[in-house]
């Protein structure tokens, strides 16, 4: 596997995992009646 391919697969996997975590964050914050982004 070339470095470029490695980077591309890493990028895709990272975005997928990161998106998953973001979704987790949003869900768990919403369950506590809050949004992910702070509102004053």
């Amino acid at each position: 596997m070339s470095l470029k391919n490695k980077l591309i697969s890493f990028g895709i996997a990272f975005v997928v995992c990161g998106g998953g975590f973001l979704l987790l964050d949003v869900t768990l914050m919403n369950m506590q009646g809050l949004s992910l982004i702070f509102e004053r």
Partner: protein
Amino acid sequence: MKGTGSLRNVSNKLIYGLFITLVIGLVSVFGGADLFAAYAAGTEAAADAASTGGYGPAPVTTAADYPSYAGVNGRLAIWIFAQLHLWFAAFVLAVPIFVFIIEVIGMRTRDKRYDDMAYEFIKVSITAYSLTAILGGLLLFSLILFYPDLFSYLSVIFGESMFYYALLFFGESAVLYLYYYGWHWLQGGLKKWIHLTLGLTLNAVGTTLMLLANAWLTFMMSPAGVDPAGVFSGDTWAAIHNFLWNPINIHRFVANIAYGGSIVGAYAAFKFLTARNDQEKAHYDWMGYNANFIAICALLPLPFAGYYLAAEIYAYSQQMGITLMGGIFAWLFIIQAVLIGTLFLSANYYLWCGMGRSDGAKRYTKYIKYIAIVLVGAFLVWFTPHTLVLTNSELKSLGGPHHSILGPLGIMPAKNTAVNIMITFTFLSFLFYRRSNKVATVSWEKTGNIIQVALFSAGIVNILFLGIYHGYFTNTVYKVAASIPQVMTTFTVIVGSLILDSFIYRGAKDVGPLHWGRIPDRAQYALFLLAVAFTWLMGLMGYIRSGIRQHWHVVDIMRDNSPDAYTPTLGYAANVVSIATIMFLAMVIFVFWIAQVSTKKSLPAGYWKE
């Protein structure tokens, strides 16, 4: 010794076993609750009949109500006896839990080494049972002698449960002796099942004992079943099932397992150092590894159990919560950070040294220094923000403990982030250790690894994002709330990569046989450090738990009017804990020593007539 390939089996089975234990533990907590409820229904009926008029308010004491004997400081005596009793109790409750699991593993795998190890664990702890009882007796006597009014008030409420406690203690001893002395007799087929049933009963009785004792102490923190003047309603179940009962139950259950693991780990480490041949070395290396593994598995969820307990203390009384995290005790959490850092670092160090057992570990050693750097970094972050708030001399001039000088919630996010990072990287160490002797054979190994790296990176980024953004740019509500997705991220990374790893290494080849015993002596000192740090930390946290009651015997109900009703300085508390730790370690060494005396034989020539 058939070490090959057992590493992964050991880990998987222990993980499975610990999971089952947690389930059993929770079931017994709640199953126990049912039993209590049934029992309480009975007492309720009795109470109705007797009407609540029979109970008086909590006694109001003066300094004269606290006798002193032979110049002994009552508080100090109680403190030390209670602490020693607790250490031994934690040890003897925990050992049967994992002895039972290991015995089950032995039964399932039909690998006699597990059975032998389980027996050795129970053997070295057997004397500790009587020491637990003796120290419990000393605690009881000193409570009656030095705090008679408190004791009589508590016995009005818990008298009946104290009686059952004593009965259960008999039951515990009976089952224990059957379990231990019947070990070699009850082997094979149905007999093994009988023996395992005894083990389960032993654990059930032991856990019930702990739940009862926990009820008494949590009643003192979060009294229930009494009115504001302390008049008992007659409902024992309400007093037992007080607000902090279950949070303490869960915290202690998990912590006991970690603690018991660390103590038997120290035992194995010592036996390793004094082993006479390679076979013994291999045996005790393997035993130490397993004990350490148990300790670490229970250590990982412990911060969360502790966080839950602290949150419940806040929920019960905001004032008590602020005393806990914002007043004088805030500094104790810095000491705690140092100790938990020590625990994590020594556990990791032991894992890294253990990689030497495999010939395939070379592939991973280059990463270890980075893990070490991150761990130390997280460790520093953990307690630096506190000390930057005020220098020592400034705080000395400040003098008073009131108000939250340290703005506890303001710095909790940094602490949470550091803990989560430490746990994630400790898990990474463990993952390397697991992989060290394996070569994956699946075709998508490289892709799998990349996904795993991505999972870790995304998880870490998310932990940092939650910690930094919510920790420093939002308000208190968000700071607290953000810790939940943070913890869940750590959890997801761990579970996700365990699953992924098990697929990548499905059908994997071994690099070569594992060389049990091929580990440097200094690695054993990591196990000693783990045991000592654990003991000391438990003493310290016990002091906090008890100390946040401040000048109350029973919070808001019965005031402590003794001359010692003040909070001592941290240095004093640390010294008491240190002395008690040394006393405990001396007794533990005695317990271990006595366990092997029974195997020694002297044959003096010409002493007996032929």
